[in-house]
């Protein structure tokens, strides 16, 4: 806040000086300067309002989730199984399931997305095919998540016969976050200066050596940014796992990738739409939402930490 005010002050100063200098010579230019300043003030005020509004939304989301959830969240809530038809107990299996699903999705999407981005950036010269693929990937990013869910149901659950399982869900979520990881990786790879590639080639490095040892390490912080966003999305999506992985209730921990699992977003959905004790269930749903929020924050935080460390080693 304080910083913002200082910036606007620095902007204003030269204008004031100019208007003072011109004031004696021509009143017209002094007037126009005053108008410019007024316009600037109005502009900054508008921007400030927009920021305030955004923060307000963010703040109120966090407030309501905390207000609703903080009463039920405690150690038992995190570590215990649901009891008494979801009206008591904890959310441990859902928490575990979301963790597995997110991990699975990133495991699927990161190698695939990175490979795609490397191929598009480093191997294909600017061609028609490249543009077509790029447009395709951008469109994929715009596909509604429930469509991914149906795709997962048709392909992984039915066609490949993986059933409603952790595996099907991970694959579906993986494809969902794939476009984001591809475009983030592409941008990161393109931001690597060409001079580094040339330096490597000039030493007698092959394309592959250059990509592996120079380009990708240099692009890693940007790639990790894509992964962070992907993690957030994979952990929070409900529709893609609705038909492919999630169960309302499981009696056991997932035994294998082919087990049905519980997951936080679906757990919240189920608590709010099914069951016979809305009041107790709503409280648990808020608690689950809070846990989901914190979980995503923790995973992202770890990725941010890794990214910062990567950046600061040599900079």
């Amino acid at each position, binding site marked *: 806040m304080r910083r913002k005010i200082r910036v606007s002050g620095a902007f204003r100063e030269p204008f004031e000086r100019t208007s003072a200098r011109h004031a004696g010579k021509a009143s017209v230019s002094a007037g126009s300067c005053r108008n410019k300043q007024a316009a600037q003030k109005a502009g900054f005020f508008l921007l400030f309002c927009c920021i305030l509004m955004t923060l307000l939304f963010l703040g109120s989301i966090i407030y309501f989730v905390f207000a609703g959830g903080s009463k039920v969240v405690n150690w038992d809530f995190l570590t215990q199984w649901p009891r008494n038809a979801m009206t008591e107990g904890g959310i441990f299996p859902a928490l575990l399931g979301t963790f597995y699903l997110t991990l699975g999705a990133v495991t699927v999407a990161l190698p695939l997305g990175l490979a795609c981005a490397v191929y598009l950036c480093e191997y294909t*010269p*600017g061609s028609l095919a490249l543009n077509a693929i790029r447009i395709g990937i951008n469109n994929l990013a715009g596909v509604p998540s429930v469509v991914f869910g149906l795709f997962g149901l048709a392909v992984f659950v039915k066609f490949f016969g993986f059933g409603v399982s952790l595996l099907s869900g991970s694959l579906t979520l993986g494809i969902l976050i794939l476009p984001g990881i591809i475009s983030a990786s592409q941008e990161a790879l393109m931001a690597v*200066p060409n*001079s*580094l*590639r*040339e*330096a*490597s*080639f*000039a*030493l*007698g*490095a*092959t394309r592959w*050596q250059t990509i592996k*040892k*120079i380009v990708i390490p*240099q692009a890693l912080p940007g790639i990790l940014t894509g992964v962070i966003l992907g993690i957030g999305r994979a952990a929070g999506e409900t529709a893609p796992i609705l038909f492919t992985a999630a169960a309302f209730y499981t009696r056991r921990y997932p035994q294998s990738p082919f087990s049905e699992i519980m997951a936080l977003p679906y757990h919240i959905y189920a608590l709010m739409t099914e069951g016979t004790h809305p009041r107790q269930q709503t409280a648990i749903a808020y608690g689950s939402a809070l846990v989901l929020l914190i979980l995503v924050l923790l995973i992202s935080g770890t990725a941010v930490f890794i990214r910062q460390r990567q950046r600061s*080693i*040599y*900079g």
Partner: protein
Amino acid sequence: MDKEIRMRAEGVNFFYGSRPALKDVNLEIYRNQVTAIIGPSGCGKSTFIRLLNRMNDMVPKSRLEGRIFLDGDDIHDPDTDVVDIRRRVGMVFQKPNPFPKSIFENIKYGLEINGMRDKSVIEDKVVDSLKKAVLWEEVKGRLYDSALRLSGGQQQRLCIARCLAVEPEVILFDEPCASLDPISTSRIEELLMELKQEYTIVIVTHNMQQAARVSGNTAFFLLGEMVEFGKTQDIFTKPRDSRTEAYITGRFG
């Protein structure tokens, strides 16, 4: 000029798309000599020098006619291994471009990609090439610091050390002092004089004094044509072509 020919360009034409950048360039580069290429901006100097180790392969829609030989082998022949050519013909670029790694790793990289695994040999090689590039005394206490923390001139000498480590036969310098201050520039020039004992050197430069100081032969390029090529002394004292004379006396360019 009765010395051994190391590289030779024969009738080289080069096009960026449909725009010709080089027109029928014929040039010999002699062993253990510094060959300077001078000329105004946009005359094709850099394009030419980048052809000598096939750096222009990556330029989309470019086309080469004519042939370039290294020890009698056509380097653009489809059977030629471009990776091997680039190891034998090293390059130092206009802007210092050390990798964002430590000083040590910058040099180690070239050794590793060329198959060197023995740690103690790598260490010896790193020290050796830093000494050759006259950088050792300045960096010996901080080999594991980021190369990006070095000054511009030091970075450029690190790039030279990195290049020397892979034991090239020819070294191409593409305006190596363009972004350096006069002191760093004179250091690099001294280094060039040292290196010429062991290596064949081609240097592109804007700076005519530099060409006169360091080179044995000089080629003058203008608008993609090689106007004149000969002993540096002759080019600067009795140029045969009036355009060369106009350029070196500062009437254009």
